[in-house]
């Protein structure tokens, strides 16, 4: 099992390959925390924005005397208005994520943790606040938060399939849900709807093992869930393949549909693919909001 330090190191390595992500704060309202995202207008912040002539009503201490001393006119130094975005993560830590079909492939949960933490690293480097949904870890900035995240990610959940935690959502923050979404879809729908209600938008990343996409089974088989709570026996596993695949694609469609309705973005990632592809997608998906 990975230790927090090793996980962090790998996440750092993943994150180092991409430029720091500047998450765009979509909504100004409701978030007053200062960040490093220039709002392209004057406001509260550290960086210089422009000098403007003193207007009546400006207090005297606002005048920039160094600039004003070069001429007759007096100027006020304005700073760029900066805010920070809050990103809430939910990573499925249930038993079903502890599956990998081959020794060479990582477990789904491993990949999910890695993606989540890499994203966190980039976000925090970009000055964002990152936390978990629910009350366990509110969004904070700084490297210490990464270690807290990594520690929590490594906790295992005993339940067979994970249910998204939608409580404690900060309005208009952003959220990232990473899971295999194999279990009941109702809690997912509820969580996404609730998030959309609070103006939270985000990403839905489905992590699947290649064997879950291919279903390469034959013969008489008893399938068991990773926790062992659900089992299904079949006499000819090969016959079930088509119907299983159909159900899987239905599930994906359903998730995509749900995302479209709530303004989220959906991506399906396979553990035999590079983690970078998923991270790249997440980065673009985060940035896309900035362009909008």
């Amino acid at each position, binding site marked *: 099992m990975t230790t927090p330090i090793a996980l962090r190191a790998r996440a750092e390595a993943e994150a180092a390959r991409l430029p720091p992500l500047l998450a765009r704060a979509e909504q100004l309202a409701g978030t007053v925390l200062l960040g490093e995202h220039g709002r392209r207008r004057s406001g509260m912040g550290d960086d210089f924005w422009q000098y403007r002539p003193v207007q009546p009503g400006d207090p005297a201490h606002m005048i920039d005397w160094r600039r004003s001393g070069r001429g007759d006119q007096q100027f006020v130094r304005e700073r760029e208005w900066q805010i920070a975005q809050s990103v809430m993560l939910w990573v499925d830590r249930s038993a*079903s*994520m502890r*599956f*990998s*079909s*081959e*020794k060479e492939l990582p477990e*789904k949960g491993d990949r999910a943790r890695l993606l989540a933490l890499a994203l966190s690293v980039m976000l925090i480097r970009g000055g964002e606040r990152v936390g978990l949904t629910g009350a366990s870890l509110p969004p904070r900035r700084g490297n210490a938060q990464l270690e807290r995240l990594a520690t929590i990610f490594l906790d295992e959940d005993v339940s067979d*399939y994970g249910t998204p935690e939608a409580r404690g959502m900060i309005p208009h923050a952003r959220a990232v849900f990473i899971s*295999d979404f*194999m*279990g*009941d879809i109702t809690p997912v729908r509820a969580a996404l709807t609730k998030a959309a209600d609070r103006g939270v938008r985000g990403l839905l990343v489905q992590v699947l*093992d290649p*064997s*879950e996409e291919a*279903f*390469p*089974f*034959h*013969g*008489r*088989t*008893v*399938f*068991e*869930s*990773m926790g062992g709570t*659900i*089992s*299904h*026996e*079949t*006499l*000819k*596993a090969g*016959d*079930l393949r088509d*119907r*299983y695949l159909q*159900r*899987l694609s239905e*599930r994906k469609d359903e998730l995509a549909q749900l995302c479209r309705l709530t303004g989220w973005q959906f991506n399906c990632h396979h553990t035999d693919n590079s983690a970078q592809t998923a991270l790249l997608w997440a980065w673009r998906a985060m940035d896309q909001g900035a362009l909008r």
Partner: protein
Amino acid sequence: MTLGPIGFAAPWLLVALVALPILWLILRAIPPAPIKRRFPGVALLLGLTDDDTVTDRTPWWLLLLRMLAVAAVIVGLAGPILNPEPDDESAGNGPVLFILDGGWTGAQDWTARADMLDRLLAEAGRAGRTVAVLRLTTPETPLFQAPAQWQARIAGLTPQPWEPSEAMMEQAADGLGDDAFDTVWLSDGVARPGRDALLTALERRGAVRVIEGGRGPFALLPATFEGGIVTLTARRLVTEGPRDITVAAHGLDPAGVARVLARLDLSFAPGEAEASGELSLPAELRGRITRFEIEGLRSAGAVALSDDSLRRREVALIAGRDDREGLELLEPLHYLRQALEPSADLLDGALTDVLPANPDVVVLADVATLSGAEQADLLDWVDDGGLLLRFAGPRLAASDVSRSEEAPLMPVRLRAGGRTVGGAMSWGEPKSLAPFPEDSPFYGLDIPGDVRVSAQVMAQPDPTLADRVIAQLSDGTPLVTRKRIGQGQVVLVHVTANAEWSTLPLSGLFVDMLERLAVSSVTAQPEPEELEGSSWQPRAVLDGFGRLDEAQTLPGVDGADLVTAPLGPELRPGVYEGDDRRIARNAMTSDRVLAPANWPARIPVEGMNRPPEQPLGGWLLALALLLLAGDVIATLALSGRLRGDGMANKGTSSAVALLLGVLLTLPGQARAQDQEAGQSDDAYAISATSEVVLAHVLTGNRQLDDMAEAGMRGLADILFFRTSVEPAEPIGVNLENDDLSLFPMLYWPVTPEQPTPSADAYAKLNRYLRSGGMILFDTRDADVAGFGAASPNGRKLQELAGPLDIPPLEQVPGDHVLTRTFYLLQDFPGRHVSRDVWVEAAPADAEQIEGMPFRNLNDGVTPVVIGGNDWAAAWAMDDRGNPIYPVGRGFSGERQRELAYRFGVNLVMHVLTGNYKSDQVHVPALLDRLGN
């Protein structure tokens, strides 16, 4: 129970085959077991039902596979046997006696006969009968035991090198006892007297069965030698069809290596029982032959030992005066040479040189006086059985030898001057020879009429003279006299060996007389009367298979028996040695004719070539195992576990691989092969010589050996970095086993507890030192003792080096080449700084030339360098090149280590280049000469 050629040991087990159809039904009803899989996607599967509600049935071919496996197990356990020995209903249950002829005639097919006997014993064991085995060549009272007891002893039963004689058969018949038993006679098919009587005796006690077969024995008669041609004759028993055999003549080649000297092919015509051929060999080669052997046949009869009849005698010819060049016919030894050359090895040289070669005969032609040492040596040699043949001549006649009293090496006293008859200045006619007396060795030789003696030395009349004369002239004067000394004899011919004094050397009689004196004898087989009363010691005897062994402690044999008595335990075929000759007694004699045995019609005779019993149970069980293994694979394949998909399958597929591996390795287990030792020797030599290797002597002290090895490695590294010498990894040398000549130098750390090398090792070391090797002795105690015996290491060094061939030593002089082979050095420190380093002393006449810095010293490398500075410790480096042992203190210590390295470099350079640097003193002179 038998089924065609197959019988069953436990036929009732076959009933179990009935259960197979039931098993079929049961197996068919049970579907294959499901696989359990962990799969998160199961949530999506919930509610999906199988289209085909019928379970997967075991396919019919898998069922058939399993049925076959079970059937193979059942049949295998029932004990099937291919070609079972037929149960002889009439055989009865009593004891069985197995009779083997046991002579050399059966040796050729002995293995087949032993196998047959083994089968018969096994058969008797199954029938629960007791058995006894009797060899007619060693008759004894049969001892009936369980067959297993005898089966264990079959390997020890070997044929004897003689044939069962009539007496032996009688003895066997007498020892049979009164109990009834059946008899199986494994006959070799050769007829011999006494067989019928034994057969009758056996038939009185029960049924007799005869098993005969094989190719029939071949035998080689003793070689006969006539007119320079060796005639070889072979006989055979089975006369059907043509047959070619090859007779090989074995002997020692001039290098003393036993090898085949000649081969002769013999062909038996169809229907012929005898084949012979002639072998014409140079006398030199013929004399070396020790035995003839029919190639490819192992039997005492196929070996014909040769004795003196083919051997060449060694004759040393010594003349008393120098050759008179150009007068070959007058040369004293010319006629002897002519007479002896065809039949003997002639040795030339001084008497003291040829005597150590232990010639059979020494001929002294006109040698008068012998030095004291020569005389003593010659006496010893004659005493040990040598034949000294002396010829008279002018010198002997003129000398005072054996004049007043008999000389030890003269048979008679001689009168002064001798006599001359029939010459210009003397009366009478030249004398002819008188007929030889009966007790003379020359008795029976024809005396040609033209042999005349015109001069001779005269014997002094003595009481013993009459006994010693073996040939005389017509007037009664002795011509040849003989005296026995110990086991040998001295013969004096009273004339010269050339034609000066007589015409005897010109006649054929001369050669005949030499032959009779066994100077050049070609002896035929001796008559029994000749050997009466003498005793003969066996030197080498044949065993039944025709192998020649040392006779060891076998007792001697009476001479008459040697020729006439039948072979037996007391008289084995072999080579017997008497006083002055060797006689071979062969298993086959010329009067022995091999005739096939005729058995009465009432005796059943069987052949030996029945197909052997072959138990099949093991094969069937192995087949069942294979089928079951196939079943495992097929089952896995059917249930989809063989495809290697998913983590859970890994275990099963590796189990399959393991099972297959086990099955594949089973037959290979018996094939254990040894590596040839010689290859590793070669590899060692190649590894030690493909690069320069610094070697150290293994002392047995682990710590010291490690230190020495590290030291050699360190020195090797230093050499590698600083010079063009690039040594390989050092090698520890075991003085007892390893070849020292592969190494340019040896480092020998001295420790008091190391073992002193063996004599062989010292011989090797001396050879090494003489052939340019160098040993660096290191007592490693220079800080506690000066060089000498003051320390334990020093005493050990003296003990170790005592047997070594070490020249005079001196302390390294200031101009020794060691001081300048690579670096200029004055001191040779190691871990210790002592000036006491000793090398081979410079020659006493070495002088310093004016204007030269060094003396003009000799060539060569000093064979030893002896010191006590513990150099290896100073050189020692670990794998990373760091010094292991501390040297000195601080910077001066490092300087000392550097000087130690430099000494090592100089030493290796000295070893590899010799006095190259010493020769450099001549460079100015050479340049000077070239310039002008």
